[in-house]
């Protein structure tokens, strides 16, 4: 449990607080998972640096040719943002699945990434969008591919004790691009998914021009089904091509047997089924 709960009002102040309580303090935003972890004694940090009062971080805007989402933007905001819905639908769809309003109103998309759980809906969509994260520490700012933030189940390469992610960005979908998000869970809502698939696809003249397929939570981190993607590009849009790609995506998954979410075999089959469905969705939708 934390001993102190600090509420800085500027980014500099937040970083200074982290530095002052070096190693003991960590950033908290929505706190959806962190508060509970801390209450249950599963978070060693004793100082919480609450960034929810930092100005300007809740923006969702187009900047420098990117769609940019601030660190305080919640799943609710992302799911209902006209900008995201129109130009990166896959992310709006994914965020729409997350929890009820009590979570959507609080949980931030950035927090979802920093948490590094493979089951996070939003993160899977970000993988498909080739998103980047802006990391800020006392030494400065840098943009890193979101995929590089993942080190394993719940392990993020960003150390929330010294730095924070202030924004996410990605290119909006182009005119010829379409996206889809598919999710299978043992209960429609409020349950960890069995498999999730996010896809961004471009089709021209009956052929796949581009394909980005992200899959979760069937490996320690969400992952891009690169072999499936490669199998699609340049190929005609046919059921056979799609089936082949779906099988390749499943071949790259490494789900565990789960007593509550299904056997490894079933989950592999479902990767295939959901990739197939996402691709068909894109074709028809």
């Amino acid at each position, binding site marked *: *449990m*934390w*001993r*102190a*709960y600090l*509420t800085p009002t500027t980014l500099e102040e937040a970083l200074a607080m982290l530095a002052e309580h070096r190693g003991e303090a960590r950033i*908290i935003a929505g*706190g*959806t998972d962190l*508060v*509970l972890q*801390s*209450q*249950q004694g599963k978070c060693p940090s004793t100082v*919480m640096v*609450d960034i*929810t009062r930092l100005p300007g971080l809740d923006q969702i805007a187009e900047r420098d040719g990117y769609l940019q989402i601030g660190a305080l933007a919640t799943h609710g905001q992302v799911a209902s943002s006209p900008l995201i819905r129109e130009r990166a639908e896959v992310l709006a769809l994914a965020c729409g699945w997350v*929890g*009820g*309003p*009590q*979570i959507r*109103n*609080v949980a931030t998309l950035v927090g979802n990434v920093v948490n590094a759980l493979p089951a996070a809906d939003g993160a899977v969509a970000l993988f498909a969008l080739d998103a980047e994260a802006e990391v800020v520490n006392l030494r400065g700012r840098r943009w890193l591919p979101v995929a590089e933030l993942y080190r394993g189940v719940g392990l993020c390469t960003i150390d929330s004790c010294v730095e924070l992610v202030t924004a996410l960005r990605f290119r909006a979908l182009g005119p010829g691009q379409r996206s889809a998000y598919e999710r*299978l869970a*043992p*209960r*429609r*809502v*409020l*349950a*960890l998914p*069995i498999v999730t698939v996010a896809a961004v696809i471009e089709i021209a003249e009956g052929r796949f021009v581009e394909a980005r397929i992200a899959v979760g939570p069937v490996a320690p981190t969400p992952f891009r089904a690169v072999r499936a993607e490669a199998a699609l590009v340049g190929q005609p849009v046919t059921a056979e091509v799609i089936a082949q790609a779906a099988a390749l995506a499943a071949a790259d998954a490494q789900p565990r047997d789960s*007593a*509550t979410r*299904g*056997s490894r075999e*079933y989950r592999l*089959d*479902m990767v295939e*089924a*959901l990739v*197939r*469905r996402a691709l068909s969705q894109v074709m028809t939708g």
Partner: protein
Amino acid sequence: MSKETISLWVNEAPHRVEIEPGESLLSLLRDRLGLTGTKNGCGEGHCGACTVIVDGRAVRSCVYPAARAEGKRVETIEGLARDGALHPLQRAFIAEGAVQCGFCTPGMIMAAKALLDRTPNPSDAEIRRALRHNLCRCTGYSSILRAVRAAQAQMRAAQAEPPDASAATSAAAYTSARPLAAVGRSLPRPDARAKVTGQAVYSADLRFPGMLHAKVLRSRYPHARLLGVDTRRAAALPGVVAVLTARDVPGVNRHGLERPDWPVLCDDKARYIGDAIAVAAAETEALAAQALELIEVAYEPLEVVDSPERGLEPDAPLVHESGNVAKHIHLERGDLAEGWARADVIVERTYRTARAEHAFLEPECSVAVPEADGRLTVHVGSQIPFDDRRQIAAALGLPESQVRVVHAETGGTFGGKEDIAGQIHAALAAWVTRRPVRLLYTRPESIIAHPKRHPTVIHLKTGATREGKLVALEARILGDTGAYASLGPYVMTRTATHATGPYEIPHVWIDCHAVYTNNIPSGAFRGFGVPQAAFAMESQMDLLAEQLGLSPWEIRRRNAFHTGSLTATGQELRESVGLLETLDRVQAAWRALDSPWAYQTAEGKRRGWGLACAFKNVGLGGGAPDTAGASVEITTEGHIQVRAGAAEVGQGLVGVLAQIAAEELGVGPERAEVLVGDTALTLDGGATTASRQTYITGNAARLAAQALRETLAAVASAALGKPAAPLRFADGRIGDGERWLAWEEAVALARGAGCALRAERVYRPPETRPLGQGGDMHFAFGYATQAAEVEVDPATGEVTVLRVIAAHDVGQAINPLGVIGQVEGGVVMGAGLALTEDLPMRDGLPLATNLAQYRIPTVEEVPEILPIIVEDPAQEGPYGAKGIGEIPSIPTAAAIANAIHAACGARVYEIPATPERVREASTREASTREARTREARTRAPMPGRGSGRAAGDSR
């Protein structure tokens, strides 16, 4: 760093509050501001009971840091009513019967308010979306959805917007087919107002000066010999007042409802992971938890009996010295060999059902208070106040007169609060420390500790004649009763006696074992072993129908119990057998929907309907003492007070008793108030279980009220100069139609004449006999038919329940709104059983310990439910009423499983029918079909055995 002070607005009033580091907004509201209307259902973000509004948005206060609320505006349930005028949502929740136990209600209303504040005219999908994080275990959500729509319509009307044509039709419009003055009318429950305003007091809401907090150390191993417990370091921790072990139990260190096999605190062995080793009482909950960590326990881990199959093996370790068979149940009727000889078709299959958790929204909480006169009072929301008293007294070595159990408002039970769960521990700690002690379970603790629904393996062999008459049934049933008997032996008896379903079968052989294991005990859970039996038998019925070329309706109709039928135990059903009517009404309702029995949607999903019937005993039966007492009093201000020892657990008994007393005394039910479950103030009501209280306590209250009625009739007769017998009581008057006396006047005359205006009666139902002794095992049964429509996604195996038609024979609906609430809630609970609910255990350890992993249905899973009330009166029941508490949960899972088969040809033999199981079953089905086709191609075509039943012929 230490305490800090924050400022915030709560319900528009400014507050400055000192908070602890790490404190949640929930604890700030409940513990510091005393706003206990906001509930703690899990404390870990899963249930939504703690929902409040912060700066216009719904949040879960249990995981919202109090510090973050600095400067914010917080709205809680207490702030909703203005100057005594309820918010439209509160009014609608009351009117629509959207309040049962009421524990989810404050959070649900706040979530709905946050929605309506921003979105005045939400779509149905938006309402569901807004409420999807608020779990309710009682209502099945249908009434909640109706209430939100009604409130929305009201709010729009108040703003003079055109009324919404789509506004829901109210369930409050339902009346009994035989309405009387008060009985048979849909009326709001008397406790609803307190529940929608946050005023209802559950035991965790109680505060006493000097109150300590207790925590229980539970076993580290599912099976271990206890070599020693050292509490010295824990006891030395400042702020810890007592640390108690088995040595400190002054009386009998065993409790148990069926047999005393369950240690209050383990002495010899720990038999499951929830077994209690020690209790620590401290100034704060955190200190008590810290103390537990300092207790040193030496265990010798023993081999774990992880399943009933293992428990029955000759070399299995013994869970109890008496042997691993907790109960062997056997019944036979007719001559099985003759039955098989007469059978033209025989179906033999094995079915499995999962361990299920009650997931009542209110975790167990007991508060024990030593009184100045040396007695001990225990406040607890449980199902059997008088048994609690008996067991507490026995463990403490006190006479029962020294212990008082007061039934607190209870946030749902469903069978899961029959056994002792903290009552004795809290009482013991209070007795030792001489201070009030509160023991509140955490949600994981609740899941680990209290008994569950039995996982079962049911092997059925069923034979029928070509005409579709059932002739023989052989059943072998195995139930995992876990570490302690709890009510398991009775539960498994019910599985056995109901294994035939509500059907006449002349030749029956049923064998059933309830086996001890090192798993969490299994005990009572709504339906009491019968849902498991129903899943198996109703699947058999469809399999037989398929082989015989009969429709699912027809095979059931040909075998259904009717007046004069004999049950498996040989009991003759002499009256009130409304089964066929429920079947007919469901069929008519299904026809009216004009929905094909099975079809494919444009998106390639498969839809289908499935049918199931059920029966369930009302009352304990089997020769068990089944009485209950009640008293009725006319107070000096002219109110009617009904007192009964039964428990109000959300089911609505208080309303039923108010209506009965009002009916007899000819006044409005709003005049009646009901006090339940106080061992010092009420007569023993027995257990609130087995759907028995409307019948038994209802009769007791009726008899008591009738006694008062006779008193009033006598004085009125004298005053009016008319004979007493034909006098009518109506609209607050007593008279013969010509001359009337005001009710108040009659009361005053009676009081003036020194008549007793309080009467108490104990009702004893017709005698029942134990299994195997012939005669009536039960004095009444409820009957039901349900049809479910599902949609199956063939690619993933996902199943969605779309509609359920549910007809229930309740004898007489005392409060139709309450009956519908039971039906809707039961159906949704049955849907959970069918599709999502499973508490798997491995090596004696549970694999789901919270409400995210254990998945009860959310509002997003709720089908459209069409309840139908059938009233085939029971002669002895009050006004003909039977019980309705359990049976709505019984046929649902079976109907859904049958619907899955109709939809996609896949038959599941194990529930829950998870997507994986459904997909597996359809793959299996497809390959059998393929093999059959291949076979058919190579050989002569098979004769028409009806294996490929076409969609249409089951209509």
